[in-house]
């Protein structure tokens, strides 16, 4: 069974081998440029870098992004559900109820987030 994976192993070996040999060849044959302070600094579209590399962001960005993902995933689940069960939903109400319970859990979360002012940017 493991023999089937020999191509994968080969792929890994070739990938690592290529990377290592390319680096090795460039060290052995290539020329090293002169290093200056400016050259060693972070490249920012050719501009002189300004400020630290890790500025602080308001935590609101994360909050909004997180909520967005949560409710986005809800849609991701709903769409295939609607497509797959389009016909059979008439026969079994359980399909409908399970989706409604899933949505209602998220609705509680939405009401909670709204009431707590998570979507209120100025707060």
């Amino acid at each position, binding site marked *: *069974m493991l023999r089937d994976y020999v191509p994968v192993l080969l792929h890994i070996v070739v990938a690592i081998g290529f990377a290592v040999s390319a680096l090795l060849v460039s060290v052995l044959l290539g020329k090293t440029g002169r290093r200056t302070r400016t050259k060693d600094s972070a490249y920012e579209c050719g501009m002189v870098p300004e400020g630290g590399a890790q500025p602080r962001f308001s935590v609101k960005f994360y909050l909004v992004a997180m909520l967005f993902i949560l409710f986005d995933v809800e849609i991701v689940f709903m769409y295939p559900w609607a497509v797959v069960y389009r016909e059979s939903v008439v026969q079994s109400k359980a399909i409908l109820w399970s989706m409604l*319970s899933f949505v209602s*859990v998220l609705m*509680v979360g939405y*009401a*909670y987030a709204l*009431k*707590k002012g998570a979507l209120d940017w100025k707060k």
Partner: protein
Amino acid sequence: MISAPVLEFATVGLGLLLLLIEAFATTLPRRTIAFAGILGLLAVFVATFFVATPPPNGGFWNFYTADPLALFFKRFAIITTILVLLMMIDYAPVVRAFVHGATTEAGVGEFYALPIFTCAGLMWMASAIDFIMIFVSLELVTVSFYVLVGFMRRNAASLEAGVKYLILSAVSTGFLVYGITWIFGVTGETNLARVASAVIAGVDRGPALFGMALVLVALGFKIAAVPFQIWVPDVYQGAPTPVTAFLSVGSKAAGFVVLLRVLAPFFMLPEVQRLLVGIAVLTLIYGNLAALPQNNLKRLLAYSSIAHAGYLLIGVVAFAGNAIAFYLVAYLLMTILSFAVLVVVSQTGGDSIENFDGLSRRSPFLAFAMLIAMASLAGVPFTAGFFGKFFVFDAAIRQHHIALAAIGVITVACGFYYYFKVVRAMYWEAPVANTAIPVSALTRVAMVALMIAIVVLGVYPTPVLNALR
């Protein structure tokens, strides 16, 4: 008669309801949320006795079972959560001091509501007989713990604990999923019973064992077995004390139920046996020896929790479900009791053992409660802890694991030293202050109930042993 999954749905519904109350009823005292949670959980607890026998396998019942083991651990999870909520009420001032919000009560409501979701996860875990179900319920437990462990966000220790728990737990989840993938890859099944029949039918053993080993890594993390115990001391020390108690009882018990269910197909393989014996011995020795020099009680209880995982692993090696269940009940009673005393005492000073100096003169009741808890943790006869260890060793000897039982007995002696260090501080040291320590009536009732349970089970263990039949 109700269908078993209704219990979990009711618990989740209760949690959601409490969250809505917390958000919309802003003038209500937060304490009410905790009491509502306790009452709701009590109702669910009563409902566990009216569960209809499940239909034979098929559909949903391939993922979920309501056998006696599952029902037993559902009740276990509910009782643990109720006791943790009671402890949280006492702990609320500390949370208030470290969570700054719009109001002084900010965050306390969520602190009471989140354990309900953990409880639902633990209950699902007790019933899970499919790797998918195990994974999802495990995640529900872990994700709610991420929030609870780092709950006091203005407290550096709690934040540190939260980050450590998040990262290490995520890594262990990775191991779990990868292990499940290997097992699925070989057997083509995620249902534990069908995996078992595939293993017996003789699939390729190597990859299946590899997958099993990876799953063991993840579960070893949950139950705090050596060498996956690195996170335990720091996280237990930094987390809010009730959450530490919850982690050390709830998370561990659920880990053991899953371990018993997952191991069943692989149990007759000698490789698995040897691996388990190795882990058990390491856990016993490490947990007990590392607990010896501890001066902080929370840290000491963290190492003691590792040591108890070792004794429970002896039970797993002997595959004695009854012994493990009894041990876990005893462990629940004594651990929650010692953390409950710690919550009250630590608010007058800190978590170190010095803060317990002369406790017998400041509050004879608390000192006596702690004495019972420590005696039971050490395994003194006539306490539940003694029978817990006794049944586990007995099961090991019956399976001819004499050396393992011997190591267990030797490490118990080690335990006597560090548990009685606390007792010595309480009864023989001069008090740090002369002020009496107030204990609320509710906490007093809970502590008395726990003490009675410890002593009764230490004399008459039959009810718990029969519960699994």
